[in-house]
């Protein structure tokens, strides 16, 4: 890091110093430059013209506001996109001219007509002068002496305790209630259980195995979701993607034999990264892509991660077919769905 050349570092080295006795070490501030008059200061016609421009700009504002009011009363947004578009455009343009006219007029006035001689004002150091500081210390010392707080240890302790404790009467009820029932173990379970039918989101039609052709993907919610106490919370955990692959393409882990049905396989739709719905299925590559952060999962191979910021595969929902041919869950997921959290494996 020593790329600096010597001439810039120490300029006196490579020049012959003739007059260093008489010249100062640094240049000094030359003081305020001369003021230059504007055209409108010198030419009365230019001055008059500038004034006229300001007046016109203010008038444009007046016309803009009148235009706004006319548009407000005459252009009704009647529910069609085009009427909404027109209303928005005309009101907006009216407001724009109403505001811009004032703004440009005021600035133009200031620039061309108001006195433009620069003025100078002195600054003073912010630091209080020494005598004031001494007085400040004295004042505080007097106050401390008046209260005698220095000599009353027990009083001090009692005061500190009281002040430290009283916020609890606000904090305890707040913290007690703000997290609902604080039962974080519900994060680990969903409403899927043995025999719950897989139904199409959002219509709720149950799905038969024969409904799926190879290459198709169904967005699935559990049957009876509407009847639960908190459908949104349940749905946020229970959504599933149901995909049919050619059984020959499917790699099934030994501990997951029997979790799929004839190439039909169900995975949680919630990303194991931070919980977006993973929904972009590329049927040629069998890859599932999350549109939020591009985690990519291989559906044919246990939904393991092939790219992106997620670490874990999507949890698989074990499925089978009931006596009527409808697809049903064998059980809940065997692991918590969604993003990782501290105690998810406990």
């Amino acid at each position: 890091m020593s790329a600096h050349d010597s001439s810039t570092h120490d300029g006196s080295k490579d020049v012959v110093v003739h007059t260093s006795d008489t010249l100062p070490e640094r240049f000094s501030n030359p003081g305020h430059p001369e003021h230059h008059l504007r055209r409108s200061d010198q030419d009365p016609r230019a001055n008059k013209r500038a004034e006229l421009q300001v007046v016109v700009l203010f008038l444009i504002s007046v016309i803009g506001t009148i235009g706004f009011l006319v548009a407000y009363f005459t252009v009704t947004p009647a529910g069609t996109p085009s009427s909404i578009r027109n209303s928005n455009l005309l009101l907006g343009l009216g407001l724009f001219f109403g505001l811009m006219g004032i703004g440009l007029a005021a600035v133009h006035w200031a620039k061309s007509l108001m006195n433009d001689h620069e003025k100078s004002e002195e600054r003073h150091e912010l630091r209080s002068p020494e005598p004031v500081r001494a007085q400040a210390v004295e004042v505080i010392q007097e106050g401390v002496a008046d209260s005698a707080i220095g000599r009353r240890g027990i009083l001090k302790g009692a005061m500190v305790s009281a002040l430290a404790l009283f916020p609890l009467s606000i904090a305890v009820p707040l913290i007690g209630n703000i997290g609902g029932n604080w039962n974080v173990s519900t994060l680990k379970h969903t409403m899927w259980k043995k025999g719950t039918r897989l139904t199409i989101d959002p219509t709720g039609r149950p799905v038969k195995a024969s409904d799926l052709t190879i290459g198709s993907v169904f967005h699935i919610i559990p049957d009876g979701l509407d009847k639960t106490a908190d459908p949104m919370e349940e749905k946020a955990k229970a959504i599933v993607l149901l995909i049919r692959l050619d059984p020959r393409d499917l790699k099934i882990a030994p501990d997951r034999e029997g979790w799929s049905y004839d190439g039909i396989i169900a995975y949680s739709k919630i990303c194991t990264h931070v919980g977006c719905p993973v929904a972009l299925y590329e049927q040629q590559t069998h890859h599932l892509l999350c549109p939020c952060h591009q985690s990519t999962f291989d559906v044919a191979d246990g939904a393991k991660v092939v790219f992106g910021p997620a670490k874990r595969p999507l949890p698989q929902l074990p499925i089978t077919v009931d006596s009527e041919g409808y697809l049903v869950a064998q059980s809940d997921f065997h692991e918590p769905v969604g993003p990782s959290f501290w105690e998810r494996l406990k």
Partner: protein
Amino acid sequence: MKALAARRHHRNAPVVVTLLALLTTGGLYAALAPSTAHAAEPTANDIAAGGKLFQANCSTCHGPAAGGTASGPSLVGVGAAAVDFQVSTGRMPMAASGPQVIAKPPTFDAKQTAELAAYVASLGAGPAVPTAEQVDPSKGDQATGMALFRTNCAMCHNAVGAGGALSQGKFAPPLANATPTVIYEAMLTGPQSMPVFNNDNITPQEKRDVIAYLVAQRSNATSVNDLGAFGPVSEGLWAWVLGIGTLIGCAVWIGAKSS
């Protein structure tokens, strides 16, 4: 170049697999689908003319009997809908290989496309080209369509169909210029990366609802310019370039000395 070539090979394999899958789909569809009224049954002449076009333009990759080769999948059983989608959007015949086959001005006119479709459909049963009534946006309900689009399509095609990115350079195309028929066929046949949305997943009526939503969406902008409907990124760019840019310009004017 080497890497590119390797990728190209790699990419074709899934195409073959998928179109095989489509074949199965077609079979299943034929078995399960309610018989739809076809607008005009293709004549033997159409099929013959289509066969000629096929031999001249498609057989190099798809094989003389459309049975597939190393460079193109079998088309037996893909149905007229798949042919109409691929040919009418100019995706087929394919011009250059890339991460995915892209749409371009079609090579064949409507009549030739219909003949090709008739020929391929004659090789094995598959989804037919939808009738005008099936894709009539005025008969669909855009609110239902929007709900379906939101759950099944928006993650790739963006909330209003402005398109979006897939992995490895692939993308879900914008839908602003897709005809209702093409939208219907895409759902039915699942071209390229797109999954299949058969009639058990999204019923024909629901498909028409989706079309109604997408068509309505084209004139649904609530301001003069919707900034491409790409969401907060383009909004942020405009806030900086136009908003802060203009305001700094004004500030420079305010701060400059009047002459």
